[in-house]
């Protein structure tokens, strides 16, 4: 899918404000510039009907969560007031939407790679957009994932993430001695 088609999908979503549409379009442009080889079809299809939902910390434990089945992006209102970089949060969300499958995203499956998946999503987010706030996300997961990438290699994480292929990653982890 071409980036223009993703823009059309975003524009067609009547649940998004004009400002939010502009934010998403700008961030999709950034993603596409960094990762031009990554297919945008999933993102485009999901952006047509994406719903933004404000919730409490009881329902959304992190500052933001994306639910692939309902295609809802939920924001923890109490947490997001803590001076986060909103563009950073939205970029993290876009990566989740882009790689969403089943009930999860990226290379995770059945929550077995949950923390590694969150750490890698945050590493990608930092790489493409940075973080202008002192409020950071998933610090422990980022540190651990960075070290694990020294073992399995960044390419394996990248390929597994954008092709939703946990078996490639798990095989490499086992080959490298993870028990």
């Amino acid at each position, binding site marked *: 899918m071409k980036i223009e088609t993703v823009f059309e999908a975003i524009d067609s979503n009547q649940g998004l404000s004009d400002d939010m549409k502009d934010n998403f379009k700008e961030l999709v442009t950034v993603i596409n510039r960094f990762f031009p080889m990554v297919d945008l079809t999933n993102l485009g299809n999901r952006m047509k009907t994406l719903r933004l939902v404000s919730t409490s910390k009881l329902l959304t*434990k*992190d500052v933001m969560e994306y639910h692939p089945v309902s295609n809802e992006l939920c924001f923890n209102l109490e947490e997001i007031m803590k001076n986060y970089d909103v563009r950073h949060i939205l970029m993290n969300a876009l990566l989740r939407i882009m790689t969403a499958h089943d009930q999860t995203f990226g290379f995770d499956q059945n*929550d*077995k*790679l*949950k*923390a*590694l998946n*969150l*750490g890698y999503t945050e590493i990608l987010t930092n790489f493409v957009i940075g973080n202008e706030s002192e409020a950071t996300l*998933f*610090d*422990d*997961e980022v*540190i*651990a994932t*960075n*070290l*694990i990438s*020294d*073992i399995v290699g960044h390419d394996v994480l990248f390929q597994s993430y954008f092709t939703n292929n946990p078996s490639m990653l*798990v095989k490499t*982890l086992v080959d*490298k*001695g*993870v*028990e």
Partner: protein
Amino acid sequence: MDILELMNYNYDLGCNGKDNFESQLGKIQVMIAETFIKTPHTKEEIASFEANLYGNSQMFGKHAASYASVDMVYPAWDKLKEQVIIKNYEENKTK
């Protein structure tokens, strides 16, 4: 997969306790280091791994209260790194 399970457990702890939880990061880092040394590495790869390990100290400072187990990381790594098989060692020795 003990490392991944401990990472998931630590994440869940953080979700429930936020800033007041006792992070398991130190244990996780030591487990990753133990795995790292199972395969041969070049000196550059070892330096990169060590830099990643040491480069996180700023974050420890920021969340110092959460990182009770971090003290174990550097002494453990100092011992572990002596066991790493250096890739191309024989080749380097003959040069």
